[in-house]
């Protein structure tokens, strides 16, 4: 589905991403994880074509990404960012349908698709005419997901989609998102820094550090056969406080 080959990116003199290879099979959920500045967001933005690689190539379903074809290919990718990136001057309906309207899709098809997606993300009908400023953080992310799914893309890219939400809503939305992914059977690439979230969603976890991939595999593989001490450290760093809490409750 997606083949990344020897892709690298420099910001000034600093390598944001060292030459990297990665293959994403269709229908799978792949999670990019690592500490801040490890290059996980850079990799996602390269896949979306928002930035251009300094070397290497990205091939999406057999087509190599280039500045000429990226606008076409983006219609087959949905993209959700941390705080939604909704257009504040447009209603929920217009935010979701803006690209379909631009492409002059049939109006009844648009209506139909909008209803379908509203049901999928469980947003009530009356929300459709509201503006982003009138929505809660969780609702905004649902709208953002609707917008990403509008044109029924083959690949869904999510950059810390739940990062700005408070823990309760985050938990609720995690459950829902997983159900939605399972329902749709789409290829998903998600960026997070939270190991529990990564383990919860990902068939494959790709742990990154300082612009390179440290280890790729299931959570079980990472936990049981860490490729480097860093893998173990990263997992324990997030698990330990919780373990201590559990201990204290006994």
């Amino acid at each position, binding site marked *: 589905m997606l083949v990344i080959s020897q892709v690298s990116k420099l910001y000034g003199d600093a390598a944001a991403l060292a030459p990297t290879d990665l293959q994403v099979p269709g229908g799978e959920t792949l999670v990019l994880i690592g500490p801040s500045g490890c290059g996980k967001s850079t990799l996602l933005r390269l896949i*979306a074509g*928002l930035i251009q690689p300094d070397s290497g190539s990205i091939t999406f379903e057999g087509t190599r990404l280039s500045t000429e074809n*990226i*606008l*076409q*290919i*983006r*219609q087959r*990718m949905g*993209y959700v*960012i*941390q*705080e*939604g*990136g*909704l*257009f*504040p*001057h*447009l*209603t929920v309906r217009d935010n979701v349908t*803006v*690209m379909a309207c*631009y492409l002059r899709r049939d109006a009844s098809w648009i209506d139909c698709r909008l209803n379908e997606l509203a049901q999928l993300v469980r947003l009530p009908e009356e929300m459709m005419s509201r*503006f*982003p*400023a*009138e*929505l809660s953080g969780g609702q*905004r992310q649902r709208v953002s997901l609707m*917008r990403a799914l509008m044109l029924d893309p083959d690949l869904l*890219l999510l950059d810390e989609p739940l990062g700005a939400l408070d823990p309760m809503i985050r938990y609720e939305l995690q459950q829902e998102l997983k159900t939605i992914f399972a329902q749709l059977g789409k290829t998903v690439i998600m960026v997070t820094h939270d190991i529990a979230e990564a383990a919860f969603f990902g068939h494959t976890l790709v742990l990154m550090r300082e612009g390179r991939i440290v280890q790729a595999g299931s959570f079980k593989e990472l936990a049981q056969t860490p490729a480097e001490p860093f893998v173990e450290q990263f997992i324990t760093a997030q698990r330990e406080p919780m373990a201590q809490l559990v201990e204290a409750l006994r």
Partner: protein
Amino acid sequence: MKAKQGIGVMLLGFFALLVYPVVSAEEPVSITVGSKGFTESVILGEMLSHLTRQTGIESRHQRQLGGTSVLWNALLSGEIDAYPEYTGTLLQEIMVKENLQTEVELKQALTARGLRMTSPLGFNNTYAIGMKAELAERFKLHTISDLKKHPELVLGFGNEFMDRADGWPGLQQGYQLPQQNVRGLDHDLAYRGIESGTLHVTDLYTTDAEIAYYKLRALEDDLNYFPVYNAVILYRADVEQRAPEVAAMFKRLAGRIDAPTMSRMNAQVKLNGEAESAVAAGFLKQALNLDVDYQIQTAWQRFWQHTGEHLVLVGISLSAAILFAVPLGILAARRERLGPIVLGVVAIIQTIPSLALFVFMIPLLGIGGPPAIMALFLYSLLPIVRNTYAGLKDIPPAIIESAQALGLPSRARLRIVELPLATRAILAGIKTSAVINVGTAALSALIGAGGYGQPILTGIRLDDTGLILQGAIPAAALALLVQGLFELIERGLLPKGLRIQTSAVKSAS
């Protein structure tokens, strides 16, 4: 590249629009008269205008233009066909480098430039030495030489006259005047000193209205000490082909206006508040037995005319500025390298003083509306360009990125997302421009474009606060009105989503 071409075409179109009326104005025969910014010149200009109309030819009077150089250049370029001038000014100011001595040499120099000059009109508006007529009568004083016999007289001169080499120091030497009690003071205060009797003698301009008002006598310059400032009519040589009857009419004024007559006419306007047009017509009736049809506009007619002129100046220049500056701001925001250059150039334009900009424009666009509109257009650019630039640059990167990620092409992104989000900033820039534009448009009267600046200039000339307010108050009201208009437009244009809970929008983006 496309954007650059588009701007090029727009610029061309805009210049074509400006030049068009200048070119087409040549078609029917009509004579344009100019005058300088003081009362005497305006009265003479009105006379020329009346005389032209007397022959059945259309005439326009560009009143009180901003100074000798504006009139001289306008005459050379054919923007005006005639204006009243003084031989002294021609010899000692305009063509001083040629060191001309006689009237014949002066006429030759004018002919070489395609200009003609009438014979002197009959008065010499130069410096004069004057005193109360009553006092002069008592001492039997008629000439400046007569002053020698009365060393006890107290002399008071304007500061400029005191300091100039050809003022008091030269005069004292030339006439061997014996007076010891001589002081320099403000010119207006000198008149009061004369009136109260603390001063006996002062300097005047020969045709000052105050001469009659304060009942002064100008002593004859019997040694011809002061240079001659004979009033003449300058006109373009082509007037003799285009409208020979008009040139003949101008010549009829030669030798007909003596100093007391001119002085009286100045007083009628300056002291009695009569209209220049009426005073000029009265003179033509009396001296040449011409019945002149003239209309004196009522205050309301003048008001509507100035309002119309002001609205045209503001309307065209501001619309052109909006059409030009918004794309320029977009270009600046989108091209990293071009941005600072565009903003820099537009800012530099803003620092050019308006009178200087007007004078630059005269060779290109003449006088009147076109150069004024061009200057106003240039002054209106900065706030709009800057605010458009800032409005687009201030859009949170997450929103731009989301629009990109959807696959919207650059232009659609601009139209659907970026411009609506920058609306508030762009409109704020337009509002600033509009207010500056309405204010600056008042200066356009200096190059004959009319508008509310016209009553303001006249009011300054006649020292008439009421007249100044007739221009200043409507200009202020118009500024508020235009601002209110854009306030309304903003209400219609600003997307609804941006009007609710601005703080919430910020946290959401």
